[in-house]
């Protein structure tokens, strides 16, 4: 029983991590809270639904979702965000606009109704855990979450590209002074953020169905995870996802009426005790060498 609850919490945590990791990295290197992430999320959700509806397997359909999110993000970064570099306010408004346009476009093309077929069926396969059925899809979700965390963490720590990205997150100006060209790093990280958001959208579908405002519905949650974890920190995002996912599952089990507010409570608690988030850097230590 409790094992079931814990596994549910872990699968929630995996979903929150995939949903928020990109947003956190993008904030780290661009200083922009990326509302458009919710747009890539919806695009990925519909892309996976489209793929599954056309008889694709789950793997190609979900990869397609990530690719759609990533390509959209890359186009947005290069054409809309890059010219606004240095104008953080303008960039944030642009990402907000992109989110609204993508939501509206999906609404216009596919209609406002919730599409259940194809996606929710993915939850019907179960295995037995402690005498209770548990959806295989949730186990898959945990595996994907772990895999993405390992890939991100290892790439950031052990590759040259990862080192340059971390340098850019630490200080853009110092990175440029070390001969690192930061503009392409921003595009790469932003596209990666789009891919993760798209994949998260696909992973969300089986639980909620497919509908245009799905991105908006999860946006607040993403922000909560990123703020709790500490903006820009991948290990922080993981820690926050685990805390919030497990808290939500446990509280939901014992005190169902609090299930929906527990993440906000966690955020308030963390911000009171550690305003920079679980693993974020203290404020006032941002780019001191900038022009």
């Amino acid at each position, binding site marked *: 029983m409790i094992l079931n609850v814990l596994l549910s919490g872990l699968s929630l945590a995996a979903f929150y991590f995939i949903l928020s990791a990109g947003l956190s990295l993008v904030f780290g290197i661009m200083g922009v809270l990326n509302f458009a992430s919710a747009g890539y999320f919806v695009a990925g959700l519909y892309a996976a639904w489209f793929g599954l509806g056309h008889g694709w397997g789950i793997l190609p359909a979900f990869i397609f979702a990530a690719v759609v999110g990533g390509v959209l993000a890359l186009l947005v970064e290069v054409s809309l965000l890059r010219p606004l570099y240095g104008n953080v306010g303008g960039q944030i408004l642009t990402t907000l606009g992109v989110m609204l346009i993508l939501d509206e476009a999906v609404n216009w093309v596919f209609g406002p109704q919730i599409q259940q077929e194809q996606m929710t069926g993915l939850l019907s396969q179960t295995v037995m855990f402690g005498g209770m059925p548990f959806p295989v899809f949730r186990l898959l979700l945990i595996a994907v979450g772990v895999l993405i965390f390992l890939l991100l963490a290892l790439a950031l720590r052990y590759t040259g590209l990862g080192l*340059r990205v971390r*340098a850019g997150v630490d200080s853009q100006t110092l990175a440029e*002074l070390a001969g690192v060209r930061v503009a392409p790093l921003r595009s790469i990280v932003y596209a990666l953020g789009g891919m993760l958001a798209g994949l998260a959208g696909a992973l969300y579908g089986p639980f909620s169905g497919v509908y245009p405002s799905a991105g908006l519905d999860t946006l607040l949650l993403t922000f909560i995870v990123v703020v709790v974890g500490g903006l820009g920190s991948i290990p922080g995002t993981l820690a926050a996802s685990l805390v919030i996912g497990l808290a939500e599952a446990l509280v939901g089990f014992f005190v169902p009426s609090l299930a929906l507010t527990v993440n906000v409570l966690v955020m308030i608690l963390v911000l009171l005790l550690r305003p920079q988030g679980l693993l974020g850097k203290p404020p006032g230590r941002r780019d001191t060498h900038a022009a």
Partner: protein
Amino acid sequence: MSLRLSGIRARIGGVPVLHAVDLEIRNGKVTALLGRNGAGKTTTLRTVLGLTELDAGEITCEGRDLSRLPTWRRAREGLFYVPEDGGVFQDLSVQENLKLSARMPIAQAIEPFEELGPLLGRRAALLSGGERKILALARAYASRSEWLLIDEPSLGLAPTVLRRLAGAIQLLRGRAAMLIVEQNLGFAQSVADDYVLLLDGRTVDRGPIDTLRQSSQFDAAMHFGQSEGGSSQ
């Protein structure tokens, strides 16, 4: 082999800070850029790297104009800037800090800086002020940069660390031209070959460092309240 600034003008937030900066640094020589607080020394270094925008004038490296290049290109052309706080990446380890700039194996890069050996895995934020300065110079060394611009290396360091730092600067001079901003005249005289005096955003005199005190501009440039313009404070 020289890096030359001529007729540099620059402003910060619309306020003119540099009015006429002319200087040249040569390979194998250490030039001390001297002047009182607010004279524009830091701004001069930042302008050379493109961190402060140039209003007028030229920055040429062996005859090539660098002033239109973005900062990262200037860095790749061999300009290395060490800001007052050392400019190391706080969240990266000592080893990663070296690796980002290195054009030689890390083992070779730290040969002259053996005190960094046991610190390689440490996050730079946890280094002491002196260790951070040594790391900054080790990064400059590892990068094989030909033009080093160092802002107040002696700031806040104890005398023994100062001697260590002077040694590191001697090591670097063999392969680079250096421009060093200093408030500590004793330290400047111990490491520099030449001086350039900056007064209210203008270079007003230059010469061999041992003639510094004979400069007719020395008192005006180094002490408060004696400049004719007096508008910079």
